């Protein structure tokens, strides 16, 4: 199943990012000093405007990028001392564009590729592949060529091929882009299931409704820095800071805040929560 940590120190901390700076061109900073700790089993959303550094940070977590200064440690060891292949055991990354990671001739081969490369064989390998296909509801499609399938299905394949490696941390970079409502709901509930199994989830997204519904912790990025790191209610309460980061909370969150001056108390993340607050203590509705 999911590998356990080598030692119990660091209070279940899986990934530590310390004072990390990075620039693609040596000039404009993509990360301008980022510090972040991820604990086992967390469900963290990283949000921020276009170009705020979200994807750069995500690629630091699995060693695709290495810090120019500062350190990233995964399970207590610097990413500088681990190869991308080694890190892939612990940190899986599903790309924004699924086609960047699909190249095999069948869905089954695609999902098998990762764990096979990690050295899994025989029954163990088949079990991992079978479970990943089932989790992403791809069993029926396993003999099809990936590129003949719809965007939603291709995205599920790219995620299945990541979870087949049994990584304990899973990073999803804008996983719902291009998906319609039903596909989005299906995918998000699969991700919830992976989190319930104990995996650590990092969700990178623009969609504040997804953040409100699923994340337990929100990291807001702006210009290569983390400007806020809190729970969704806390994150949405600072409208000015969110706007400055090109983010807007979902409409019901804004509405609940406006209604405070009329005596509404509490924060709402969904229409259901707002309805409850509005009618709380109003038994006799006219």
């Amino acid at each position: 199943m999911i590998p356990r940590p080598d030692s119990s120190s660091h209070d279940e901390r899986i990934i530590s990012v310390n004072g990390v700076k990075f620039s693609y061109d040596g000039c404009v900073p993509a990360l301008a000093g980022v510090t972040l700790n991820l604990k086992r089993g967390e469900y963290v959303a990283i949000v921020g405007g276009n170009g705020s550094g979200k994807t750069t940070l995500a690629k630091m977590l699995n060693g695709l990028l290495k810090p120019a200064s500062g350190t990233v440690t995964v399970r207590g060891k610097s990413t500088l001392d681990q190869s991308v292949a080694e890190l892939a055991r612990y940190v899986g990354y599903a790309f924004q564009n699924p086609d960047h990671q699909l190249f095999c001739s069948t869905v089954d081969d695609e999902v098998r590729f990762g764990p096979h490369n990690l050295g899994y064989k025989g029954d163990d390998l088949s079990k991992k592949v079978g479970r990943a296909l089932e989790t992403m509801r791809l069993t029926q499609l396993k003999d099809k060529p990936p590129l003949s399938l719809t965007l939603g299905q291709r995205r599920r394949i790219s995620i299945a091929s990541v979870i087949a490696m049994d990584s304990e941390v899973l990073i999803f970079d804008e996983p719902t882009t291009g998906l319609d409502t039903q596909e989005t709901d299906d995918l998000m509930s699969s991700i919830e299931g992976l989190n319930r199994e104990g995996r650590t989830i990092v969700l990178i997204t623009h969609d504040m409704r997804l953040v409100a519904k699923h994340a337990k912790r929100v990291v807001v990025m702006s210009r290569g820095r983390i400007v806020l790191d809190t729970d969704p209610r806390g994150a949405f309460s600072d409208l000015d800071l969110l706007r400055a980061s090109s983010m807007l909370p979902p409409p019901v969150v804004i509405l609940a805040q406006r209604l405070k001056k009329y005596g509404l108390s509490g924060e709402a993340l969904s229409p259901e929560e707002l309805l409850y607050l509005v009618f709380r203590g109003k038994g006799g509705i006219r």
Partner: protein
Amino acid sequence: MRALEMRDVKFRYKGSEKRALDGVTLDVEQGEFVTILGANGSGKSTICLLSNGLIPHAISGDLEGTVEVFGKDVRTVSVADLSTKVGVVFQEPESQLFCMSVEEEVAFGPENLAVPRDEIIKRVEWALDLVDLKGFNDRSPFNLSGGQKQRVAIAAALSMKPDMLLLDEPAYALDPVGRIELYSVLRSLKEKYGLTVVLAERDAEDAVAFSDRLVLMKDGVIVRSGLPREVLRDPHVLRSAGVAPPQLTELASMMNSRLRTTDLSFLNVDEAEIAIVRNVLNPGGVGRP
């Protein structure tokens, strides 16, 4: 004369078994802002491709019914002729940007129409001003943010002085603020210049408040068409078409069933605020809780 007139249009892409459009009748008046909502595969992109003539001229398939754009049948008018009437903006701005500077990008269309130099310069300034990118002339389009890139693509379409702009999920990769900025620019182009806007969207949340009319599609047919308030009245209809109802639509529907009425509908936070205060939090008005 209408901007777009489709009569019982059926279209099947070559090599596909199912029809992408299965009997669509749709009118778009000049100066109207119409948002077509639908899930993947509902037919909204096909309507865009028909309206600028790429179907049937560049993309083949079986076309039945008639499609007229500003009074001209798309079967007989050329794509080049239509391009002076109809501008198109696709999902990915990168797929449309290829010049070294923003200015060259925006000048490209009119240059190819052999528009005089002075006029091109004027149009570039005009278009950049409209999309809030004044002074970006010499910047490289590739070093801009996603939202800025998409606005360059719109300016490039506008410099052709089209009467209608078709946008196929233009907010796809934009952050929430970038998305609102984009819709606001489109709305003001409609208000100021009478531009006809046809927007295809899968996500209803932000676009509806800017639209004159919503058209809801499912499996190649139109299931609802009307004022945003009418189309949004029943969240179930949206959901069954694979479109998530906007949060405020869901809230209004829940409040209606709670208050045993059908009166409430909110298109924006202001409307919702007023309605909730009047109906629940402070029904008697100021001073009477």
